C-alpha cells in the first residue's frame, strides 16, 4: 500500500488537477502537492466550506458532512474527510478528472486514517 505522501502526489499528477492538499481540522496545511493555487488558501477555504455544510447537514438531520464536491465556473473542488482529524481538498481545473481523483482520494483517506 502506498504511503500518504505518494498518494497525494498521485492525485496531483492526474491531468486536470491543480492542487491537492492534506489539512487538519482547522484548515492548516499538513502536506500539499501541485501548483496553480495557494495550498494554504485552498485548505482554509475548503475547511470553512466543510464547517458550513456540516452545520447545515446537522440542522437538516442528515448528520455530519463527509464529502463535498463544489462545482464552480472555473473548476471543481473536492473535499473529503469531514468527520476526520485529517482532511483532503483537491482543486481540479477539469471536472472530467473527478472520477479518477475520487478513486485515489479514497485510498489516501484510508492511509491518513492509519497514521
Amino acid at each position, binding site marked *: 500500500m502506498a504511503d500518504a505522501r505518494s498518494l497525494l502526489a498521485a492525485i496531483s499528477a492526474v491531468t486536470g488537477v491543480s492542487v491537492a492538499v492534506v489539512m487538519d481540522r*482547522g*484548515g*492548516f*496545511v499538513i*502536506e500539499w502537492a501541485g501548483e496553480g493555487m495557494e495550498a494554504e488558501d485552498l485548505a482554509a477555504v475548503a475547511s*470553512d466550506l466543510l*464547517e458550513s455544510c456540516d*452545520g*447545515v447537514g446537522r440542522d437538516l438531520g442528515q448528520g455530519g458532512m463527509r464529502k463535498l464536491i463544489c462545482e464552480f465556473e472555473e473548476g471543481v473542488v473536492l473535499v473529503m474527510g469531514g468527520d476526520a482529524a485529517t482532511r483532503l481538498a483537491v482543486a481540479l481545473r477539469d471536472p472530467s478528472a473527478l472520477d479518477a481523483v475520487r478513486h485515489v482520494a479514497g485510498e489516501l483517506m484510508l492511509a491518513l486514517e492509519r497514521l
Partner: protein
Amino acid sequence: MRNRRAVSSIRQVSGWLIVAAGLVVYAALVLLLGMAHISPTFTLPSWVAQAVPPILYATIVRLCFRRASALRWTTATLGLWGIHVLLGALTAIAFSSLGPLSVDVGTIDAFPPPALPEIFWVPLLLIPFRDLVRERASRTRRSVAANRPSGAAQRNAAPTSALAAPHGPAAPTRPGTSAQSRTAGIVSAADRLRTAGPAPRQASPALRSSSVQQGRAGENHAPRENTRGGAGFLPRRPDETTRRDDPEVTLRVSFGRVAEQLPPGAFHVPLDQIGASLAEPGHLLIPGRLVLAQLAEGFVRIGWEVVAPQFPHDLRVMTDDEITARLADGQLVLPLDELVSQLPTHLFAPSGRTVDIAGLESVPAPFQPVRPEDGAATQMKGPGTAPAGDVTASLASKAGAAFDNRARMGDRTVEMAEREDLVLEDVDLDPILIGQVDRASRLSMDAHHRPSRRGSFEELAAWPRQAWADDVSAQPVEVVSAVDIATMHRILAALAPLRTVDVRVHPVKPVTLFTMSPSGLDRDAALAAARILLPLLTEGRAPWPVDQLTMRGAEAVLILTPIGSMRRGGSVLLSVVQPEGAVAAVERLALRAAAVKPGASSEPPDRSAEWQEPDFLDSEIPPLINQIGASIDALGAVTVEVLRDQEAARDLFLFLPEGSDVRMTGRFATELDRAMRSVSESGYTFHTAVLRSGRRRLIIRAECAETGRATIVVAGGPTERPGLACRQVEAAARALCER
C-alpha cells in the same frame, strides 16, 4: 324592508290630537260650569289659588321627566304656567263675546285666570313637547334604537347588507333613502359603541363623523360634544365591541387574504377547498362593529372565535383553542383595503370645524395647512403618494394616534405606534471587518459616510475611535438594557447554523479592540484574555514583526490581528473561534480585514525598551533534543538551543532558524507563557501560541509534565505547512515532557 326612523314628538299627530281633544273637553267643561253657575275658582285666598297651578305643573313635569335637568324642568313649568295664564285670558275674552248665550261667564276672570279647569288641559301639552323636555342623551338612545334595523329586517337582509352594498346584493330600500339606510347600520354601531359602558374621552373621527352626519340628516339630535373639532381616537374596548345581543352589519373579506395566517395542518383539506366551503364561499364575514372599533388604529384584527363558526367543523383537525394558540397573538389580521372599500367614504371625512386658512396659501408647501376636505383623500393615500401638505397632516395624525395609544393601551400599543413611525436606518458593519474594503478605501469613506449610533447594538460603533469622539459629546448614548442584550444573544445562538458572529468594539487603552466571535462562546472571557495578551503585540516585544497571534486552547481559539501600529494607538481585531472550527479560514479573513500585507510591518524592534529578561542559563543539548529538532522539518532547517529559566524553574527548547535571536525569543516565550497562565485564571486555558510573521510561524507550546516540570517548546521558521508544523511541535513537546 325599511327601517323605522326617529320622529320627534312634536311631529307626532297623535299628541296633538290628544291636546285638541283636551281643549274641546276644556271648553265644554267651561260651558257646563258657566251654565250651572258654578265658580271654577278655589275657595282659597287668591294668592294661594294662583300658586297652585305652577306648583302642580312643576310636580307633573318632575314626575313625567325624572331625569330632566333643573333648567328644563323650570322652563317647562314656566311654559305651562304661561299657557295657563294665556288660556285663562283667552277663555274670558271668548266667553265675554258670548253675551246672547245664557251662560254665566262672570265667574271667569281674565286675570288672574282661575286654576280650574285649565289645570286639567295644560299638562296635556307635555305630550307633544316631551322631546324638548327630555334629556338629549335619552332622546339620542331612542333615536338610535329607532334607527336599528328590526330583527326581521336583519334576518331578511343579505349578509353583506348595508355596508357591503357595493359588493353584494343590495338590500331592498325605499327609493331616495338608500344612502341613509346604508349608513344607518354604521351609525347604529358607532352610537352603540359610544353609549355602551364608560364614556370614552373622544370618539374616533370615523365614528364622530357618522354621528355628525346623522345629526344633520335627522332632527339635529346629534350630541353636541360630537361636533367638536380636534383629533381623537376611540379606545378599543373589546367588551363593548363583542356584545352579542345587538343586530349588526357585516363586512366581507376575501378568504385568500387571510388564509396564510391560519396554522398549517388546521384542516383536513387544502385551504382553497376550505375557502369554497365557507358560509359564504371565498369570503369571511366580519361584524362591522369590530371593524369600526379598530379602524382608527390603522389595522383590524379579530379573534378566531369570531370567524370559527363559518368554517365547517367536519374539515377541522385542530380545536378552536389550538388554532387560536397558533395564530399570531391569537388573532387574524384583516386586509384593511378590503374593509375600507366597503365603508362609506364620508366616514373618513374630518369632522372638525373648517379652519380658515385664507391668507396662508403663500406659505411654503411643507408648512401649508391641510384643508379638511382633503383629509379623507389624505388618509386613503399610500405613503409616498401624498403631497407635502398631506404628509404633514398624516404625520400629525400619526403622532396623535401614537400619543393616544400610549395613554390607553400600554407598552404593546406603544410598540405598534412606534413601529408605524419607525424610521429605518442603514446599520452598516464596518466593511473592513467583513473584508469588503481595505483600510485606504475606508479612510476615504470616513469623510462621506458615517454609520449611525442609533442601533440596537452599541458594538455597531465599529468605527475609528477618533471619528466617534467627535460625535460622542454631541449625541446621547442610548443604553441597551440587559434584557435586550440577553435576547440578542439568544437570537444569535439560535442562528448558529448560519455562523453568525457577534461584533463589538471595546476601547482598551491605548488601542481599540474589535471583537468578532460566534454565538455560544464566552466573549467576556475572550476579552479578558485579550487584555492580557495585547502588550505582547507591541513592536519590539516579539522577535519578529507580528502579523497575527493565535492562541489555541481546549475551549476556544483566539486570533489577535493588529490593525496598524500598536505604539501609535492602533486597533486589534480579536477573533474568537471554536477549537474545532475553521481556524485557518478565520486567520486568513482577519488578515484580509486588517489589510495587513504579511510580513510588511515596518516598525523596528524597540531595542531601547527595557524588558525584564529572565535569568537564562545555557544548557547542554542532549542528543535526544537534536533528534527531536530534526523531526520538526515543517519549519525548515532549525538549530536547537536549550535555555534554563532559573527563576521559573523551567526549560525552554528552541528550534529556530540559524541566526535567530535566541534569548529575545526565549524572553518572548516566557512572557507569553506568563500571560497564558494569567489568562487561565480568568477563564480560558491556552496551550499553544502561534505567531505569524509573513510566511514565518513561531510556535510556542507550554507543557507541564506530571512531575511538575514545566517545558516550553519554541519552534519557528518559514513554512508552507503550518498544520504539520504544529503537529510536529506538539509531538516534540510531549516527547520532551516524557523524557
